[in-house]
């Protein structure tokens, strides 16, 4: 069985005027089905960049991304979007909710993207129910009609999580999901994330600065100078072995 996600020699550089700024310099990384992996590294090392490449938001400058064995990293934009819609959920440090929409509508939006009129009419009600269910699942049944401006950081992240799992994605990419929250709230968000991960059995990639947090994952990947420097494996939150 092929890995959930695999990168081969991923290079990425940003163009600043005439200047090429290399960020990723040959990343080889494998995420297996159902695995929880943390991605750590210094700020500015390219974690977010890698996450965006893994999430097919941006094709790498060179190298390949395989999703369940299929080379998808540099497909057409709409092909990548389609894969993303069906397989990938994102959670960001700054929540990235749409401020004009209520919590419920933000979650619902994940189901509405790419939906033609027929489906919209047919599935609309069911999708709304599902969005309610998900908000209940993340503990926000009393906040459905609230807009982002009326919610706390922790609540915002819960909405974002509910939105990310709307399509039951096989892959959850989280970019410092607790980076903007106090320790207590952050802990509860993590509780939620790991709980959901085990329900869905999806692969979880968690970008973080927090070594404690990294240890809760089954594996840690460190990014140094544009490459995967080392990968450590943990089991049940305790360091177990080095690869």
């Amino acid at each position, binding site marked *: 069985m092929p890995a959930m996600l695999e990168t081969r020699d991923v290079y990425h550089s940003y163009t600043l005027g005439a200047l090429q700024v290399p960020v990723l310099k040959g990343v080889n990384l494998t995420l297996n089905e159902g695995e929880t992996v943390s991605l750590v590294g210094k700020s500015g090392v390219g974690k977010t960049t890698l996450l*965006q490449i893994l999430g097919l938001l941006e094709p790498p400058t060179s190298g390949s991304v395989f999703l369940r064995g299929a080379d998808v990293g540099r497909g057409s934009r709409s092909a990548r979007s389609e894969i993303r819609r069906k397989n990938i959920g994102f959670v960001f440090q700054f929540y990235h909710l749409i401020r004009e*929409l209520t919590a419920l509508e933000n979650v619902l939006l994940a189901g509405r993207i790419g939906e033609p009129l027929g489906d919209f009419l047919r599935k609309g009600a069911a999708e709304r129910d599902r969005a309610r269910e998900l908000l209940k699942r993340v503990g926000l049944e009393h906040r459905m009609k609230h807009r982002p401006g009326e919610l706390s950081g922790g609540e915002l992240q819960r909405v974002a999580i509910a939105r990310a799992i709307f399509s039951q994605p096989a892959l959850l990419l989280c970019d410092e999901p607790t980076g903007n929250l106090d320790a207590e709230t952050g802990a509860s968000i993590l509780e939620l994330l790991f709980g959901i991960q085990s329900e869905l059995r999806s692969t979880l990639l968690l970008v973080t600065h927090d070594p404690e947090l990294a240890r809760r994952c089954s594996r840690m990947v460190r990014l140094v100078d544009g490459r995967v420097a080392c990968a450590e494996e943990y089991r049940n939150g305790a360091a177990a072995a080095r690869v």
Partner: protein
Amino acid sequence: MLADATVTLIFTILGYVLGGAFLGLTAGGVLYSLYLTVRMAGVFPLGLRYASSRIINLVAVVGVAIGVAAVIVVMSVMNGFISEQRKLIRGSLADLSILPAPRNHDTDGRPSMPGSFDEYKKILDGTPHVVAIAPRFVWVALLFPPDTLNKFNLARRGSDFIVQLIGIDPEAEKKVSNFNSWIGPIKENEAGASTEERLIYQMVNDPADPLAKFSHPGSISKESMIVGVVLARNIKLKKGTRVEIVTFSPQSTREKHDTPNMFCDIAGMLHTQEQEFDSHSVIVTIPALQKLLSEEASDFTEIIVKLDDYKNADAARIEIGRRLKAAGLLSARGYSVLPTDVPLTETDLYRREIHTWEDQKATFLRAVENERGILGFIVFVVVVVAAFIQFAILSMMVTEKTRDIGILSTLGGSGGEILAVFVDVGLAITTSGAALGLGLALVVSANLNKIDDFIEFATGNRIFDPDVYFLKSIPSEIDWIQVLCILGLTLGAGVLSSLFPAWRASRLHPARALRYE
């Protein structure tokens, strides 16, 4: 004048070229947008929310509404004016007029009509589309009211005294023209009727027999005549006045001019609302006119025709022309308005002798239609301005929503969904603006006169001064096809102007958009 015509022509051509290109683009844009909206229906609520949650969008909606309303109201008033003008221009004219070319009388060389009215009637009565016909004997004469014995005065205002002497058959006439209402009372709100005219106006004694002789105390009764109400005002005629008519007879030759005269009593006045007709017409009976002119060979000079529907005018002209020509009652020497090497059509053959009312007023009607053309150009400008506003607003919005565009991408949105969201915003703004504008326009055009009254009350000035336009109230006529065109154009302009910003949004790099602060 030439310069005016050239400018009009340039505007017209420019209008057509721009209009054509615009229509093509618009139709394409609208269809594509509707397709996007249906295909990406899921993001429609988001577009709606975007559209409704920004004040500036509401401003745009109001802007579009005001633009649309203004255009519809102006167009409707224009329509009202044009149809009032058409009525005024048409005035007393019948659907068709038949004016057979006179023939030179075989024996003595005098001109006469090719046949008697009865001969024409026999043919016309069975002709399709013809509902009624009436003979008219139209001549020209000079009036001598009693107080214009001073001939210097008369000469100074000569054109007031030169009249068209129209011999009619009252019974037949009533069935073709509006003769009955022309000799009826002037209505309070009738266009063109000043108070003064209503005061001097006097109806005939017996509308059933309007030209009956009536007794004149102390003298013998003369023939009766009905004069136009403006003519009466101009040369100060009253009901009962005895007027001398001087004319020349058809038998006049170069060697000897025969200038018969007769005295007539004014039986009443007539008002058609056509200035020209009301100021220069005198109606008598055909026999009275024949007697005055010692004319026996001809009992009419033209025949007026009422059709079942004016739409059939061209068909009726051809049918009438054929039949009269076959009977030798029409010369059918055609003429074409086009260069001579273009073959004559059948219509061309009869055009000279059978006129539709529009033929007779072609120049006026063209002028009126030109007004419409220029108005079309104004509409175009308004629509373009509205489109620009929308373009600016949506462009700003795309920049403002850059991060949201990134979010939509993370949720699996590709170019199509993002395009759709902003096109939806544009559609929402334009359709609600257009709907609001339509409502506003309906309310305003139904209450134009009240609004004008209110403005007069508030400011002391009238926007619309009825005396200037010969109208008692502001005319307004909503033409739904026109309204649909205006709405369609607005929709098209709105869509076109939102497509480009939307396209720009869809081209944004999702990863970079996500980092946008």
